[in-house]
């Protein structure tokens, strides 16, 4: 979706500043994501009143009152369809949705699947800390099998979900991976994601010093590399999928895959072709005289 730039405004980080103090644990990766989101919006010259940020429930959701902009903090697992509905109502506004790995791969996994296959033109930022942070460290579907966690002292008996193979099976049009420790790279990814035509999936590996002892900040730091440094072509889907899935030695970050050729959900709606107004602008009494005719 092209972004409506406010010609007057050149927002600064100050415009996104909230007086409310952050409440994440020391060293939490959410601080980095929080900064990068604001930075990306500022660099894109999007003022706070021209964006809707939708938060799921989880530690990341506590961002909802720690920055400015129109914000929504909803139910656990449900952020994607809410954000999609908002976007359908007013496609002119950029809509960002934030969710945890618990929310997105358990409670709300259906929404993730259908969000991707629906190609809603929204950005989805996955706060991937490999566990349920807010409820004090239970395993998520992305926690490694065998890792003892709250409520699973013997480690989970389920297989860890291979999230990237899963996501690629849904024919996504934008897949990126970032690391909460690299704010600059994440900022750039988010800028591209906001500019993407369809559903942008941004997986952020997020440190959680309180509960994630298996993929800590330092461990991640040691293993990430930037695909742009190695000349990865993000239009090469096969290659993208391969480097997305295989994290056995190193973890690829950056924009792994991007395809701007696929029309998004709104563009595909037959009745909305060539409609210039948004559904928000169309709320007026509609004359149904013609529609009544068939019943006479």
């Amino acid at each position, binding site marked *: 979706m092209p972004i409506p730039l406010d010609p007057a405004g050149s927002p600064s980080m100050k415009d996104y500043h909230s007086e409310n103090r952050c409440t994440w644990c020391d060293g939490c990766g959410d601080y980095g994501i929080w900064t990068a989101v604001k930075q990306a919006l500022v660099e894109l010259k999007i003022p706070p009143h021209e964006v809707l940020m939708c938060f799921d429930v989880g530690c990341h959701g506590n961002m909802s009152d720690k920055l400015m902009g129109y*914000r929504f*903090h909803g139910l656990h697992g*449900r952020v994607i369809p809410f954000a999609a509905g908002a976007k359908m109502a*007013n496609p002119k506004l950029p809509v960002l949705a934030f969710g945890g790995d618990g929310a997105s791969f358990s409670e709300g996994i259906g929404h993730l699947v259908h969000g991707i296959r629906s190609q809603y033109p929204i950005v989805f930022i996955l706060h991937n800390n490999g566990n349920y942070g807010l409820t004090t460290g239970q395993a998520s579907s992305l926690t490694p099998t065998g890792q003892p966690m709250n409520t699973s002292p013997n480690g989970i008996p389920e297989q860890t979900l291979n999230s990237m193979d899963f996501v690629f099976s849904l024919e996504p049009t934008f897949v990126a991976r970032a690391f909460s420790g690299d704010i600059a790279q994440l900022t750039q990814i988010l800028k591209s994601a906001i500019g993407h035509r369809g559903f942008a999936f941004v997986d952020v590996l997020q440190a959680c010093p309180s509960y994630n002892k298996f993929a800590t900040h330092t461990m991640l730091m040691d293993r990430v590399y930037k695909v742009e440094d190695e000349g990865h072509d993000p239009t090469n889907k096969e290659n993208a999928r391969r480097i997305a899935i295989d994290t056995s030695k190193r973890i690829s970050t950056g924009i792994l895959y991007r395809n701007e050729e696929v029309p998004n959900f709104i563009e595909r709606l037959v009745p909305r072709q060539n409609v210039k107004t948004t559904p928000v602008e169309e709320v007026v009494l509609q004359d149904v005289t013609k529609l*009544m005719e068939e019943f*006479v």
Partner: protein
Amino acid sequence: MVRTSLKIVGASGQGIDSIGEVVAKALKRAGYCVFGYREYPSLIKGGHASYQLDFSDEEIRSTETTVNIVIALNHHGLEINVPDLKVGGILIHSTESWKFPKEIETLIKERDLKIIEFPVEKILKEMKAKPILGNMLLTSFVWAILGQKADALKEMVRERFAKKKDVLDVNMLCIDTGTAEQKKHDDLHVPLPKSKKKWAEHLLITGSKAMGLGAVHAGVRLYAGYPMTPSSPLLSYIAGIQNETGMVIKQAEDEITAAQIVSGAMLMGTRALTATSGGGFDLMSETVSLNGIIENPSVFVLAQRPGPATGLPTWTGQGDLLMAIHTAHGEFARCVMAVSDSTDAFHLMNDAFTIAEEYQTPVIVLTDKQIAEALYTEAPYNQKKAKIKRGNLVTDPEKLKKLKSTDRYNPDAKDGISPRWLPGSLAATYAAQGDEHSADGTVDESSSNAIKQMDKRLRKMAALKAKLPEPLLYREANDKWLVASGIDTDLDVLLIGWGSTKPVVLDALQTFKPSNLQAAYLHYTYLWPIKTDFLQSLALKAKKIVVVEGNATSQLSMLLKQEGVRIDHEILKYDGRPFFVDELQRHIEETLSTAVSPRINSGANNRSS
């Protein structure tokens, strides 16, 4: 008032609905008021289904248990439906050399029934026409029995197949043949009263379609839904006209999604609608709660069918009233209203959005399978009535500039209704916060804030209650049952109902009229918050207060008793069928004669307890 009725019976998928709809439309155009009622099992094909039309020159809005004509499309009709015929009734079938069992033979004699074998297949073979045309043959045969002119039928067919000359021609031939066949039976007549022109201009429309029209009229620009009987016809209708209305339609992956999509769309500022039935509503309930705390206007249509679980998925009931009122965790303002027929379905859509936007809270609109699928004859909808009212929605740029973030959920706002403005507005921003929050949507778990915000939200409920109209009182005036402002005499009986019971109660009262009986009907459109002042004033003058509803536990009674209302009798039905007019009439009479039994549980068997 003379009622006439016919019933087409056969297997699902045999064309019952198409015959029913054609005859209904033709009758209406000929100047009769028609009420159409469908029964079908939860199967795609096969299973015994029926379409009954009750019609008259006067207003009619209910079904009788017996009919004048049965058209049996297969032999099951012969097995099952003979007892449905009134004295002198006609059964038309095309099952060769059928033999009735003895009891039925006796019944046929007793009731003086005419059993007509109409050899559809043979005639079709002679005409070299396709089997599908059998329906048109039958239609025109019945049409002639009703003493109607073939031209009326032809005109309808001409409209429909205007562009397909060959199809048109063979249909015309069928009409002539069917009409001619009737001539062979000289005593085969069911004469109708003189027609009235006004009905011809009326709409013949199901509640679902009327609701769809009402939604379009009310400025609903997005519909998200998930198929579930009896809410699916609304989805299908609205989706079917999308290219005309330009609406955004989303068949969601589940009900939670549909509820979330419309909530997001409402937050953004359009009008968006979803509908489902009980099971789907269970899933939506968490979202209803969410809209309660973020004060997001939202409208949920709950189309009832009998539960629990899958229950009777293609049948009707009113078993989800208390669920609509109390489901969804936490305490918050909500409005529950119920439509009673197609006209209501049309008008209450805008009303629901008005309340949702004025009180910034969820509204649940109850309907049921009966309303959703029955055909009502109604005057074209008045489009001058509705106004788009968006409550305290700020859109003026100057006013927007003056807003502070803390205005959004200002707990001191009058009646708890604080200003609302839309994402994208050039104004201070806020968080629509699902956690308990202070005025700008900041999470605030303090005791004082929790009390303030809960009070704020519940004050809206008090304000809504004050503003909602009292239930509607219907009294007889010049042989018609009309809305009245009060009563001047004591009442022998005050009937109370909600939803789809209204039309049948009024028809029952209209038909059943012991000259000296003082009766009235009180109809609850708005069920939560519930108002009982008017009712209590009537109760003082009513000898018997009788609640009539389509459930087993008398949920409206429970609500009313909670408010201290005296209830003397309950007439309940919970077999998946709507009340039938003659059955209801009998039950009302029973309540008048019974001194003790407080509850009449009614099935098709009319059991009393």
